[in-house]
């Protein structure tokens, strides 16, 4: 069976710059693929090509077996998009936003009244059905955006930073909803800047830097490949000594955060570090995706 989303060798130039450079991305049914990367990595442009907003200069995108470049309208029938910014229709109520959005799809979603009622109930929006979206809190606005993206029963859902700006409780509410959608069989492409979100929700990660895929796989695998097995945290006052040790191992200066150096190391390097600095006070922790972002943003 073919993948829900199969994108190959995507290339896009914007303003004379090669913003996306040969990106491949695959998403299967019941899978959440986290698309990560620091600002300017090409995430948004990649995402916009995947949901048909932009045309790739090179490469092919298949959605549910349909090539986007050949039959965009048919391919978009299988896609639901929750953009980063709120793009609901402010002229309509919460309920009308769902019915109006359904009018932009053919074949028309069947049993629309039942579908809208079901979404309002599921996303906890029934009490606000007759309110204007701008009266909703941030968390409920995001719920409306996701509900609207689902009104036509898509098979593939794009969530572009769905929890940005939400309080922790609202974020966890959205996580539960996203997790439930995966269980129902949707394929989901998720972009986020919250590393805990990517780690908890994603079945697979694709990491972009400078328009290219620099790592893909599970969160643990990606971290092992790109960051290392451990991170040594040591006061920045020892910077000179640490830089010397790193230099001897052919490594660049580590990230400095709030007066502490965060040095990613392998198991062997950790043993060597302990031998090199027997009297130094330091902490050893497991690497996170934050370390990966710091590393990518420091790399040229």
């Amino acid at each position, binding site marked *: 069976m073919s993948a829900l989303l199969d994108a190959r060798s995507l290339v896009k130039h914007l303003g004379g710059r090669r913003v996306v450079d040969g990106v491949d991305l695959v998403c299967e049914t019941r899978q959440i693929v986290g698309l990560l990367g620091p600002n300017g990595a090409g995430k948004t442009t990649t995402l916009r090509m995947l949901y048909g907003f932009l045309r790739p200069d090179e490469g092919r995108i298949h959605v549910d077996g349909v090539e986007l470049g050949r039959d965009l309208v048919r391919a978009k029938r299988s896609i639901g998009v929750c953009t980063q910014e709120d793009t609901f229709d*402010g*002229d309509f109520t919460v309920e009308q936003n769902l019915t109006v959005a359904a009018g932009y799809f053919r074949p028309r979603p069947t049993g629309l009244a039942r579908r809208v009622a079901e979404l309002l109930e599921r996303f906890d929006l029934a009490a606000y059905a007759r309110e204007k979206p701008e009266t909703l809190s941030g968390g409920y606005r995001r719920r409306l955006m996701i509900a609207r993206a689902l009104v036509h029963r898509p098979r593939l859902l794009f969530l572009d930073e769905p929890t940005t700006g939400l309080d922790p409780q609202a974020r966890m509410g959205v996580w539960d909803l996203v997790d439930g959608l995966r269980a129902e069989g949707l394929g989901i492409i998720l972009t986020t800047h919250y590393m805990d979100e990517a780690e908890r929700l994603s079945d697979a990660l694709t990491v972009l830097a400078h328009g290219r895929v620099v790592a893909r796989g599970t969160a643990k695998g990606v971290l092992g490949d790109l960051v290392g097995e451990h991170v040594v945290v040591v006061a920045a006052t020892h910077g000179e000594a640490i830089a010397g040790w790193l230099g001897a191992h052919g490594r660049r200066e580590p990230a400095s955060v709030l007066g502490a150096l965060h040095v990613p190391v392998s198991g062997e390097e950790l043993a060597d570090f302990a031998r090199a600095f027997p009297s130094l006070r330091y902490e050893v922790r497991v690497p996170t995706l934050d370390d990966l972002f710091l590393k990518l943003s420091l790399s040229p």
Partner: protein
Amino acid sequence: MSWLIAAVEWQSRAVVSRHLRVYLRNWHTAFLPPALEPVTMLVAFGVGLGGYVASLTWQGRPVEYMTYIAPGLLAYATFMTAVFQSLFAAFIRMRYQRTWEGQLTTQVELRHVVWGEVLWAGLLATMYVVIVAAVLAGFDLAGLLDMRTERLPLLLPIVFMAGCGFAALGLCFTALMPTIDHMNLPVFLLVLPMGLLSSTYFPLEHPVLIALNGINPLYHLAQCFRGILIGGPVLDHLAAVLGLSLLLLGILVPLNLRLLRRRVLGD
């Protein structure tokens, strides 16, 4: 030619239907301006200024000033409604409400959004003109005008076509202007001069204005309406209105698409 085919595709109709739904929901406020504007204009220009002008010559015969400006009001309403809808309302939907971006996440594409705006502005102008025409028919019934009221329905397809052409012009500025404040530039440099110097409220005699109006669709629209409603040449002006409207659509819709692709999609 996909940009042209999009005019008749279901997605463009879905966009128009969305705008119509918003308009009809606010009908009590939306119907007031087209009903009150001609009354104000007829009172101000007709009764007020008309008191000094009384009558003027049209096609070699004297015509009451109020009768002269009545067809001009219909042309003016067509122009202003279509241009302002595609200038301000479309800009607000594009920039502040992000309605376009929401539509573009569905099966609607940018060419449908653009045609949806153009067709909606044409339809809105037609609905406005129906209301203005009803008010004018009332004035005619009261003996304040002397028009062939029974010919008013003939104007509607012409209004729709011209409205679409004017909307393509307005949308061009929507694509170009960086902020809503910049809309003052097209409004004061083009829309108001064009609206007033097109034989809408007074006949033109200056040779430069007459020459310029040869390619001004609003001038031909006003003269065409005058010919239909109070008698005079129609066919030449009708051909000019239709030709110039098609020209505006044929040149500006593809240009708008190009400009908006960069602005909205960043492509």
